[in-house]
């Protein structure tokens, strides 16, 4: 446990030293403030616009952080040979994977928390109406980021940073088009194909179904059930990805 914390704190420190967090934070604050000035363009839809741009900013920069820092976590360690120092110490390989994951988790959490705070403050000061759904939406954006982090870690246990960035990105995109598979299922000519497509629809990370920005922006209530199932789903998926990552990492040799 202490080792995981120690490794995670190094990951966090790196992103602080490389100014990834401060860069993302300042840019997203800027975007939220800028969205307030768009009143003339928004045609009376300013409330929606501010909420939408705020939530999108949180999710976009979380993505940015994961692509730039998450996909390099493991492989960079191998490439720069810093792993030799780490794995010869009394640290199990599982702890390394978990440490890296929780480091990334803490970066994302820190970013999401601070941006959300700023965002909610802006909404309150500007007297823009919002309800509980906006908090739910932020939770779900965070869940998406967590799932994506574990995907990034998973890919980076066996491929180069550039490749795992690409893989992660395409998994993310696939997760957003997953609902379109349901249309394909109706058109599928054979039963086997239908089953296969349904399987794909369930297996691809359901980013589309976790996203509830549209409800938050328009103050439409979302049931607590939805959040509970989202959390359960994300938790199990993340668990599987980390488990498989540790299995791969345990077998790995470092030349």
């Amino acid at each position, binding site marked *: 446990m202490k080792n995981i914390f120690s490794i995670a704190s190094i990951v966090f420190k790196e992103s602080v030293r490389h100014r990834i967090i401060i860069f993302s934070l300042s840019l997203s604050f800027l975007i939220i403030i800028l969205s307030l000035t768009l009143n003339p363009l928004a045609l009376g839809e300013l409330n*929606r616009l501010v909420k939408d741009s705020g939530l999108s900013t949180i999710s976009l920069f979380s993505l940015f952080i994961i692509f730039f820092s998450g996909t390099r976590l493991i492989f960079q360690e191998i490439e720069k040979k810093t792993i030799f120092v780490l794995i010869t110490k009394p640290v199990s390989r599982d702890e390394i994977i978990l440490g890296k994951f929780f480091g990334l988790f803490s970066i994302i959490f820190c970013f999401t928390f601070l941006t959300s705070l700023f965002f909610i403050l802006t909404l309150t000061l500007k007297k823009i109406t919002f309800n509980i759904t906006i908090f739910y939406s932020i939770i779900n954006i965070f869940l998406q980021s967590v799932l994506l982090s574990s995907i990034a870690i998973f890919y980076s246990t066996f491929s180069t940073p550039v490749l795992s960035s690409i893989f992660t990105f395409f998994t993310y995109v696939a997760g957003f088009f997953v*609902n*379109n598979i349901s*249309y394909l299922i*109706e058109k599928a000519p054979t039963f086997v194909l239908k089953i296969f497509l349904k*399987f794909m*629809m*369930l*297996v691809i990370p*359901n980013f589309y*179904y*976790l996203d*509830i920005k*549209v*409800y938050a*922006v*328009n103050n*439409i209530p*979302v*049931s607590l*059930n*939805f959040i509970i*199932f*989202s959390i*359960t*789903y994300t938790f*199990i*998926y993340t*668990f*599987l990805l980390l*488990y*498989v990552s540790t*299995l791969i990492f345990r077998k790995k040799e470092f030349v």
Partner: protein
Amino acid sequence: MRVFFRIFLIFLLIIFFANILQNLPENKKKFENELLYFPSGKFIKEVSLDYKTTFTNLMWFQTVQYYGQHMLTDKNLQFLYKLFDVITDLDSNFLQCYTFGGTVVTYDQKRPDLGFKLLDKGMINLPERWENPFVKGFLYYIYLKDYEKAYRWFLFSSTKKDAPYFCKTFAAASKKKEGDYLTAIKLWSEIYNNTDNRYQKEGAKYNIIVLLMENFNKVLKEGKENIYVYLKGEMKKLDFLPFGIAVKIFEDTVIVREKQ
């Protein structure tokens, strides 16, 4: 082996929860909720960079599915126009989108005003094509039963390059519906003269004869006093006919035939 079993078990759990997640009410009606706040096509065009055609195809795909799904269930198609509008913003040359969109928006969304708006947009963006005015005429004919306007749009479509012969047929049909049988016959004669296709010629001839017969019978039934004088006058007006006709008057009916 135990590891594989464990992974398989977690996998099943994922599938189970994914299924629940996808079928929660929030996700079931998510697409509609998204459509409520769908950005304009011009905006998407700007942000889709070099992938406009991809986006267009994707949107088209979703739209057709949306149409089909709701037609089969609740027939609530309130976002149909918006979708077609976005697609045609993305790709202004998407002809099928104007014609199909115009038809289904008028017919199934029951908004002829929006359907015509879509078709007008099509005519502005694709002025060379005959399809858009034709469909507009068609909708006036079938849906609004405004035969005068239908006639004009059919006629307009027939002036376009590569317009098929039936543009005029439809114009003629509109005229006939309106009661202006003479113009209808004129149109059919024109079709007769301008086509080399035997079937189209025969069809035009048949239509002319039926039109004449219907009209004469109508006059007869109305009990016009001097039917002979009337017919003579009408025959004079019909001197443009591309083929000769023979008219026989019986007590209660008039028969028209091609002169052999």
